[in-house]
């Protein structure tokens, strides 16, 4: 299949570092932008994570970092800008219009495209969410520029100042670095929790550049009839959990999975799992950690009976401390865990649960 059409960002033959002169018209594109995504009055945290990453890129390039807020006129949109400054933005482009109340592809594509054409950023970052991906694909096509999806690392190529965007490919077995040649802006999306949350700095502020949307409701074909919010109580919240206890196929039988729940209960942790367990129906899909599941970055991740396949690893390796329990001393998970116990998960897990319980009891006594 090597001479086949590749219709995606799966690697073609690496083209190597191509020398090229950036078009003078494109060299005028300056600055790093982050699209500030919000829904129902709340900014998606991926936007702050992107500002953290965007700050580093902007500093390396010696340019400004901007947040882009499209929303309704009033306090809320302005508070989003203020919050963007606290997370590292130097300025915000603000487009206020009643039509921007709910996310819709048409007005948001028009708004963001207009801003890009008017103020010409060299890099534009969006979250790889249902909103960010919907918008990014439309905007990139309208602008006829390159877009790299689901990046795990963003860097500046020192030779030509272009964005080098790294992403997993072929089901995560390999990584590839993608560059956008003679096109601007260079666009990329990043999944939530892949990048670290930047420190919030209360003292930071910045300037706001306003720009009108300039369309009327009658010209927008798609209408929002209703928004049915998720019942968050019913859903596991792995992405922001501080502690996660996760199980894999090494637990052997669904009956053994309660050992994970018991440890999690003592620790006040969330429960995660590998894909095979989700596919076999041991736990719900929202608990899957990894490339085709959730990306998590807890302070402590306990992995029991998990081999550490790369597709699982990419979803959890940003955890501060990883404890791995595996009967195979050569399991790949020991290559990147912090601590390892070589042994049978079915006996280690209860022992660990008991040890934590005692530790907590002693800590409480000590006050």
């Amino acid at each position, binding site marked *: 299949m090597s001479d086949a059409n590749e219709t995606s960002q799966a690697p073609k033959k690496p083209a190597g570092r191509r020398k090229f002169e950036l078009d003078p018209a494109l060299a005028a594109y300056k600055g790093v932008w982050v699209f500030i995504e919000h829904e129902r009055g709340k900014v998606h945290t991926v936007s702050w994570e992107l500002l953290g990453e965007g700050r580093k890129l902007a500093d390396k390039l010696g340019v400004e970092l901007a947040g882009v807020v499209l929303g309704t006129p009033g306090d809320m949109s302005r508070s989003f800008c203020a919050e963007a400054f606290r997370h590292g933005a130097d300025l915000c482009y603000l487009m206020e219009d009643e039509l921007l109340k709910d996310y819709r592809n048409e007005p948001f594509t028009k708004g963001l495209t207009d801003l890009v054409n008017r103020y010409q950023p060299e890099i534009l970052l969006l979250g790889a969410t249902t909103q960010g991906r919907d918008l990014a694909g439309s905007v990139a096509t309208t602008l006829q520029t390159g877009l790299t999806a689901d990046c795990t690392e963003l860097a500046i190529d020192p030779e030509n100042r272009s964005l080098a965007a790294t992403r997993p490919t072929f089901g995560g077995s390999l990584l590839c670095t993608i560059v956008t040649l003679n096109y601007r802006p260079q666009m990329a999306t990043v999944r939530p929790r892949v990048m670290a949350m930047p420190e919030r700095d209360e003292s930071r502020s910045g300037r706001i550049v306003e720009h009108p949307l300039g369309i009327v409701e009658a010209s927008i074909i798609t209408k929002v*009839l209703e928004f049915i919010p998720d019942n968050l109580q019913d859903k596991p919240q792995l992405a922001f959990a501080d502690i996660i206890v996760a199980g894999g196929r090494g637990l052997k039988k669904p009956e053994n999975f309660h050992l994970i729940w018991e440890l999690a209960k003592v620790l*006040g942790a969330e429960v995660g799992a590998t894909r095979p367990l989700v596919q076999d129906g041991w736990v719900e899909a929202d608990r899957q950690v990894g490339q085709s599941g959730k990306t998590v970055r807890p302070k402590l991740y306990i992995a029991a009976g998990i081999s550490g396949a790369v597709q699982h690893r990419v979803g959890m390796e940003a955890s501060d401390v990883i404890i791995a329990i595996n009967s195979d001393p050569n399991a790949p998970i020991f290559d990147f865990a912090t*601590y390892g116990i070589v042994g049978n998960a079915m006996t280690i897990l209860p022992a660990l649960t008991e040890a934590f319980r005692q530790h907590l009891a002693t800590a409480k006594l000590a006050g």
Partner: protein
Amino acid sequence: MHIVVCIKQVPDSAQIRVHPVTNTIMRQGVPAIVNPYDLYSLEEALRLKDKYGGRVTVLSMGPPQAEAALRKAISFGADDAILVTDRVFAGSDTLATSYALASAIRQIQKDMPVDMVFAGKQTIDGDTAQVGPGIAKRLDMQLLTYVSSIPALDMENREITVERRAEGGVQVLRTKLPCLVTVLEGNNEMRFATMANMFRAARYPLKVWDKDGAGIEDITKTGLKGSPTIVSKVFAPTAKTVKAEIIDTESNQPKDLAVTLLAKMFTQHPQLQREIGKSAN
């Protein structure tokens, strides 16, 4: 009603192996399948056809072997299949791909107007989720991504109502045809191929279009030339240099191992003391 469903043949990523020394993909013997996300879209399109009548045309851009994916779709109940294949498309990124597919859809429209285009939410090999939005933009169609259900379709007024997965909830949207829909996984399951359709698939005279057949106007917008992004480097994830500290005790009894681990961890990472049991009950 006429629906065009865009599908892609992909290598079954579950079976892809990386050569341990050269870090290259070992494609040999890896079976090609229909991108699983495309099947949710195809099934949804077939359900609309069952309910409202009309035709479903499947469209794929790819190498000649992608014919197999299209025949598979016919066996599930699609009416027509078109393969767009030409060497000029080699190396296309998502922008160039949406250009070629949009152009082919315009050709299809010359024979029979297209009311809706369905595309997979994303592919399992590229994962970009960009081709659908790109086609919609190029054909000036309304874009409906991550659709979980289609509660209403009014062909008379050419209006469609869909439920779309948004962050933190579900948006109920109403729009006008023509539109492009990408379907969220897990809300339907591909039907079984009937015997009759399997026979039909085997005999079906597939339409094969080269760049002229697909009505490509500007060849510089296709293939490597028409792709703003290039892959500059492919590499294996680096192994961390520091391996796990393996907890060892004389007895190697679970209890001793657990206690030793905790003591070590809380000494080296005292901040974890505060996290443990924080929200336990």
